[in-house]
Structures are given as C-alpha cells and as structure tokens.
C-alpha cells in the first residue's frame, strides 16, 4: 500500500467511484469531478468509506483550507468567499501539482471546492495518505493487515498500530507551514513596513 503509483491508485479508486455511482469505470477520468459524475452528498460518504476500507487510510473530514483557517484565524487565508494572496501562496505550496492557472486572479472558495472534488485530487490525497500506512511491521517485518477501526495488525507478532488520520496529518502540515513559512515572512513584511514609516 505505501508504495502504490498514482496510476495504481487511480485504477482502484475509479472502480470504487464507478461502483458507488453505478456508472461505467471508463467515465471516471482523472479530470472528472465527482459531482459531475452524479455524486450526491451521501455518495461521497460511501466513496469515502470504501476508499478508507480498500486503501487502509483515514481521510480528513474537512478540506485543508478549513483546517488552515482554524490555525491561521479568520480573514488571513480567505476573505468574503475568496482566497487572499496569503491563501493562494499556501495552496500553491500545498498543491504543487495544480495547474498554475488554478490560483491566478480571483479564486472563489467554490472553485477550490470543485478542485477538491476532482478525481485527480482524490487520487493524490489517497496516494499521500497511503504512505503512512505501513505494509510491514516495524517490530518483526511481518505483513500488516487491517484490524478493527483505523488500526493495522501484524500477522506475525500481533503488533497493532493506529493509523494517523488525514485531519491530523493536514493539521501537522499546516502548523509547519505556519511556523516555517508564514510567520517568518510576516515578520519580514512587518520590518519592511516599519522601515518605510
């Protein structure tokens, strides 16, 4: 699981989506959006559950932007429904694979939500989370299998671990960005402003 390629994740995820939405897997392209494939809110829940079960991962229950707003506070990353320049900078750092045009000009929150509903966005998120799901036991090297809840168990020594949740990983990434990227830059801007005054 931890070393799945994007193509392997896509193939498996496309099957999950096709089954949930009762459509042909051929309709599930990397650029398609789940809502355009006919997904309603409860379908997204079903797709989430099936994805977690098949990839042994724990998906976040809110977007990275929402988690970031909680860390940064209001009006720094988004204001009145649009990403601020600071918000764009953070999202570009978080989503380096995104088309540069995604963050040009005014970026409404709804446009970002559409981006997060893309099959490609889900595939990359699943692939990133799967890296935290061990295939082998750290104690004895035995094979790990899914256990109860979001846990994995070694078939040889019985060692159990709890998977890190997507929300926990997102929050850790945001905190690191906040402390190492945002705060130093904000301090530098404050110094420049003081110098001008």
């Amino acid at each position, binding site marked *: 699981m931890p070393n799945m390629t994007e193509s392997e994740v896509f193939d498996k995820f496309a099957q999950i989506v096709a089954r949930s939405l009762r459509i042909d897997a051929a309709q599930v392209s990397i650029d398609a959006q789940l809502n*355009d494939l006919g997904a309603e809110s409860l379908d997204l829940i079903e797709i989430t559950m099936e994805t977690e079960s098949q990839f042994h991962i724990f998906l976040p229950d809110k977007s990275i932007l929402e988690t970031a707003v909680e860390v940064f506070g*209001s009006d720094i990353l988004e204001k009145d429904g649009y990403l601020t320049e600071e918000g764009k900078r953070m999202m570009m750092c978080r989503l380096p694979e995104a088309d540069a045009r995604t963050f040009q000009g005014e970026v409404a929150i709804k446009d970002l939500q559409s981006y997060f509903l893309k099959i490609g966005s889900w595939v990359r998120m699943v692939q990133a989370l799967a890296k935290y799901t061990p295939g082998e036991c750290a104690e004895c090297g035995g094979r790990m299998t899914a256990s109860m809840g979001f846990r994995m168990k070694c078939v040889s020594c019985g060692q159990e671990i709890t998977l890190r949740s997507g929300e926990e990983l997102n929050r850790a990434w945001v905190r690191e960005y906040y402390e190492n990227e945002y705060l130093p830059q904000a301090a530098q801007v404050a110094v420049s402003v003081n110098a001008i005054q």
Partner: protein
Amino acid sequence: MDAFGFTVCDAPDDVQCTPCLSRLWDAAIAPYGRGPHGSGPLVCCRLDALPLEPDLLAHLLLSPGEWEFWRQMRAVDKRRREWLLGRSVAKDAVRRLVEKQAGVQLAPADVEIRPDPYGRPEAVGSWTARLGIQPAISISHSHGTAVALAALCPGQLLGIDLESLAQRREDFEAIAFSPDERRMLAAIPRESRQEWALRMWCGKEAVAKALGRGFSIGIQAFHIIGAETGSGILQLELRDQALEHFPRLRGISIKAYTAREKDFVFSTTIYQGAVE
C-alpha cells in the same frame, strides 16, 4: 404563528406569463405556519421530472449566463438533468414569491440562479434592484426529484435537503454521526432507524446549506443535540472550529424540520439572525 415564527406564503398557483413547471410543496414548510405574525413569506416548490427534452427546456428557461454554463457542462446525463431540474424549480419558487409579494410576473430567464463565492445559490436579475427585494433560496435534488425553497426577508438563511431512502449503505452512520448522535439513533426503534438516520443527515445538510459553507467545514461541525420524533424537529448546534466561521452561533441551537414522504426524507431550516 408556529414554533419557528415564519409565515408560509399563500402563493399563486401559477405565474401567468410562463407557466410554472413545478408544483407547490407545502409539506416541506408546513411547520412554518400561516398567519400575520411570521417573519416573511416563504415558498417551496417540487419538480419530479423534466417535462421536456433537456436542451429544449434549457432554451426556454435559462438566462444567457446559465445557458452558457449548461452548454459547457461536462457531466453525466443524470447530473445535467438534475442541475436543470434544480434551476427550473428554483426559478419557479422565486417567480411565485415575487408575483405574490410584488405583483410582478417574471419570466424564467429573468431569474438567474448562480452560486455566490462559497457556492450557495442566489437569485439575481435586474428586477432585484428595481423591486428592492433579494430572495434567499436553497435547492436540493436527489434521484430525479428537485425541490427549492425561497423566502423574502433580509438576513434569512434557508436550507433544504432531500434524500432518497433507496439503496443506502446502513453503515454510513459511522462517518456521518458522532458517538453522541449514534447513541441518539440507537434509542430509536429499529424499524424507523434508517429513516431517522437519513432525517438527521438531511437536517445537518439543510443547516450546512443555510450557513452557506456546506460540509466543507466538516460533517461533525454540525452536531445534533436533540430529536423530537413526534414533530420531526431536530435541534442542532455548531461545534469546535466551525465556530471560528460563525462565532455568533456559539451556544445557539438551530431548528431543522424533517419529515418522510414516500421514498424521500427531507429537511428544511430557516434561521433568522447574524451568524458571522
């Protein structure tokens, strides 16, 4: 006046210039009552099927901006049909409301339904400035049926959600609900548990829509703290970090009405007051 304090609009059966395609659906707003004390008029409409071939209907109903969106929409047939159903029923709800309140008959294309920056639908057109009114709307569609709620009161937040009872995974509750909410569900008789799970989901989604951010702030942000099985009324409050977006809702309980009609469960909520 009822427990919610709103007035159901005694809307005309139809707008004369172009007939409405949908029917009035008072069942969804029944608890909001009728009478002189309500906070504003309210209309709910429902459409169960497209009455015409989609492209023809789109030509008849859509504004130039909506038509362009329809033309470029890359989506499966089901999604395209439901989008058009949603636009149709929302336009009808707004037209009926405006006809009743201002005596003005609008054509469907006059009422453009477009998302605000957060994705919440809003009704726009030159008539809003001319008449000095700005209806609030909410739309939901599921399994080939679309419903829309429209109200005319500044600051009113509306949410409606409709879900089909058909083909639903029973274990969706594990993700949809918190342990407290699952305990609440467990106390409901087994034969109505699936229906109530869906009612609770609809209640959450209706409130999420009313606040304008949907579930992007997290499903668990919308917490059900009470369910009256007799009246179908749920009490919800915002939890945790969601209050960062809506600080004025700290400690506030929001009511959502829920009911079942044949194979559908639905919820409506109307909140009057500042939230941000």
